[in-house]
């Protein structure tokens, strides 16, 4: 049952299509629209895989297609998606960092409300990516990174300012003590020679 709701993407002439349901994809394979050497992908798969290598799809439909027309491998086409699926403009297999753990780390450590927007954007990334909104997912990823850095830097700046003030305070107190001691010594020492 759940297999029917899974969203498949397929690659044809270096362009990505989909998402389509398993049923639709099977139909396309049966009609020869998608060939058994074409690459397909769905959420959860590590990389783009040829149709022929997926058990779910290499069903009666595929066998028929193969019997009708044994698909000749087209080298130029087959190489490109294999070499680097990440280079394709909208490849759902592309890894888009979500910065979730980094944003949680800065929220806990830097003790700044600025970490919250970082988590919000981080939480958005994977869902956008799963629904095929790659540009939006990239934007959310970039925003999560930006806010993580803002939280981290402002946390570090606050720490630096704090340490600076502490050191200045210490020096100031030291000076004051020396001054008081100096005045005190003067008061005692001055009358002594006379």
């Amino acid at each position, binding site marked *: 049952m759940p297999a029917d709701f899974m969203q498949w993407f397929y690659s044809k002439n270096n362009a990505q299509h989909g998402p389509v349901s398993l049923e639709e994809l099977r139909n396309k394979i049966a009609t020869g629209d998608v060939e058994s050497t074409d690459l397909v992908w769905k959420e959860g798969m590590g990389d783009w895989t040829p149709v022929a290598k997926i058990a779910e799809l290499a069903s009666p439909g595929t066998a028929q297609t193969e019997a009708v027309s044994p698909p000749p491998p087209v080298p130029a086409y087959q190489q490109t998606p294999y070499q680097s699926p990440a280079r394709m403009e909208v490849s759902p297999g592309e890894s888009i960092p979500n910065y979730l753990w980094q944003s949680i780390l800065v929220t*806990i*450590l830097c*003790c*700044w409300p600025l970490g919250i927007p970082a988590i919000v954007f981080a*939480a958005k990334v994977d869902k956008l990516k799963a629904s095929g909104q790659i540009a939006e997912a990239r934007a959310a990823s970039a925003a999560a990174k930006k806010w993580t850095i803002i939280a981290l830097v402002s946390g570090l700046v606050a720490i630096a300012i*704090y*340490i600076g003030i*502490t050191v200045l305070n210490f020096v100031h107190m030291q000076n004051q003590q020396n001054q008081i001691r100096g005045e005190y010594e003067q008061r005692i020492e001055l009358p002594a020679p006379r």
Partner: protein
Amino acid sequence: MIGRRVALVVLLGLLAIPAAAYLYYSGPNAALLPGCLLHRLTGLHCAGCGMTRATYEAFHGNFGAAFRLNMLGAILFPIVLVLCGIQVFAWLRGKPFPSLSPAKWRLGWWMLGIILAFSVLRNIPAWPFTLFAPH
């Protein structure tokens, strides 16, 4: 590129050692350790409040005390540290780490909800919630 990344991580690691040693020997109330600015300005306990003290206690083997100071942080911090460490390692290799779970986006919202709820609850000055406060 990769060499520069390794150098950066090693440098940060070397900087972290004296900071950890200072916390270990001088205690969480030492002069150079900054308190939380948010707490100083507003008096509120945010989600990370008590983490310096909790880390100090954990350094000295008092994990129970660390847990009482910040329940969420004591659980989440080691996990997040390991996961971030894995990502740093992947970054050093120049190859992204494969996603840990396909339903991770849900985890993000859960984390956000838990952290926000914890931040609110630990500021309520009544009994069951005072257990969350860093005292």
